[in-house]
């Protein structure tokens, strides 16, 4: 390919981005754009899969049959989100199998929020309200992201996440109408999750090296601090309606980086769980492959 042809392709890509149109899998794209997308979509997919664990921890102890059904359906949705996102990632030329191995080896990250433990049933509600709420703030703008398969997956995911957030809030609201012990359980859970939820928006803009390039490429639409401020503003009236007090907004970024680097309370446990499920299932996947290849 000539340098002139390369320049034409790059100009076409830039024009598509500038017009706010979608890049599709067969379109030419800069290698940096492709790599950034693989990193971001994989990280998002891994977050869905690892995110099944903290809430999944309570499925077998859900205190009513209705709550058990809601929680199981919710965690099942997260597996579904993981599937859409791994599929979107596969359009960029990587396989789900490779991505899973990179998750297990620690080569690719997932959201740090899932490295905190879930210690009471109220955490199921708090995760829906605050964690899914923060995720929605991050993700809704991604419905308009420049890469077509990612944007379309995100439209579906955001609809379901919005539903999840409501179920979380509804659980907390119901518990607040229950006993004193239940109200205390809700407050204690909010106390633990508020600051970690705020950290989900990522480091302050000054310390977020990838933000500018991602915004220029139309992958990211708002800065971390913009989204965080918006989330704080939206959460205040919801907390008041619920009757809980939100802790302050001063964040310990040393803690954030410690957890990102693997030093959180549940990092090792989450990866070990995923690795065990993956290893335990290897013989099943091998059998399915062998059967698919066998003559009928």
């Amino acid at each position, binding site marked *: 390919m000539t340098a002139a042809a390369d320049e034409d392709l790059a100009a076409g890509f830039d024009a598509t981005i500038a017009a706010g149109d979608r890049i599709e899998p067969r379109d030419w794209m800069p290698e940096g754009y492709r790599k950034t997308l693989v990193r971001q979509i994989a990280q998002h997919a891994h977050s869905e*899969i690892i995110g*099944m664990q903290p809430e*999944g921890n309570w*499925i*077998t*102890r*859900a*205190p*009513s*049959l*209705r*709550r*058990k*059904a*809601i929680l*199981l*359906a919710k*965690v*099942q949705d997260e*597996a*579904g989100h993981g*599937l859409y996102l*791994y599929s979107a990632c596969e359009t960029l030329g990587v396989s789900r199998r490779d991505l899973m191995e990179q998750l297990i080896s620690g080569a690719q990250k997932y959201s740090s929020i899932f490295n905190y433990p879930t210690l009471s*049933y109220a955490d199921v509600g708090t995760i829906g309200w605050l964690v899914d*709420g923060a995720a929605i703030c991050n993700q*809704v703008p991604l*419905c308009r992201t420049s890469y077509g398969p990612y944007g379309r997956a995100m439209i579906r995911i*955001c*609809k379901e996440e*919005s*539903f999840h*957030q*409501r*179920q979380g*809030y*509804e659980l907390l609201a*119901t*518990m607040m*109408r*229950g*006993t004193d*012990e*239940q109200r205390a359980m809700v407050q204690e859970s909010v106390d633990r999750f508020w600051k970690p939820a705020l950290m989900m928006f990522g480091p302050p803009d000054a310390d977020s090296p990838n933000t500018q390039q991602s915004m220029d490429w139309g992958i990211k639409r708002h800065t971390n601090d913009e989204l965080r401020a918006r989330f704080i503003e*939206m959460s205040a*009236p*919801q907390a008041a309606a619920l009757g809980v007090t939100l802790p302050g907004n001063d964040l310990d970024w040393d803690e954030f980086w410690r957890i990102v680097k693997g030093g959180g309370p549940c990092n090792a446990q989450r990866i070990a*769980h995923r690795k*065990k*499920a993956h290893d*335990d*299932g*290897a*013989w*099943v996947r*091998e*059998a*399915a492959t*062998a*059967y698919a290849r*066998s003559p009928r």
Partner: protein
Amino acid sequence: MNDDHDSAYAGLLVDDAHWAFGEAAHDDPLAGMDTSIPAGVDATELASYCLELGDDALVLAHRLSEWCGRAPDLEEDIALSNIALDLLGQARLLLTRAATADPSVVPPLPDGSPVPPEDALAFFRDDHQFRNTNLVELPNGDFAETICRVLVWATYRLALFERLAAHPDGVVRAVAAKGVKELAYHRDFAAQWFVTLARGTEESRRRLHTGLAQVWGYRHQRGEDAVAEAVLAEVLAAAGVAAPDVGPVATSSHTEHLSRMLAEMQVVARAHPRGRW
């Protein structure tokens, strides 16, 4: 796409009617159904029968939900949760039916407790009060054993539910009519995996034989069923698997596993007998 999409998050403070799952108090699984006892039906026997069918579904739903986040691949994780959700739905309807037919089956709770009858039955009975068969309470084992259990159980349950179309109680008939479609899928899912594992690798075939031998002796606990036996024989033939040489397990009580399972399942509910969830 317009910016309204960004405000999905702001819709939280709407009134309760907007909640997708409805207010808990309005969430009677049998809402809108005629729950009077038909002439000629003994209410005590009906309640007892609904507890048997409901407990089977509840306990197996619980076992299958233990797979969530642990299955061999995402597709199987989703499928096993789906089956668990269907069975949980059957359990809720049947336990509620048992309570409406004979309220005396519902364990007493402290005055003012908002716990609905389905949850009183699920979370406040002890192991010896559960009417489920041993087949559903055994631990999951590996994926092969789980597939064998779902195959055997769903095949038997489907044959039974097809006959329940003629049951005198309208609620039981309705539960069965809904359940037939679900169970046909469960049986199909398990049968496909049964054949896949049988014809996959040496290891999968070995594990399948072991899993089948584990559950095979428990399949007659609600009586032998010729329709179900014929279907199972067909699946085994398609897979090239001989029926295990295992006689019916003689038992008149639960296994050791149920009490441990219930300890986990009931722990939060029992800690808050006046709690609202």
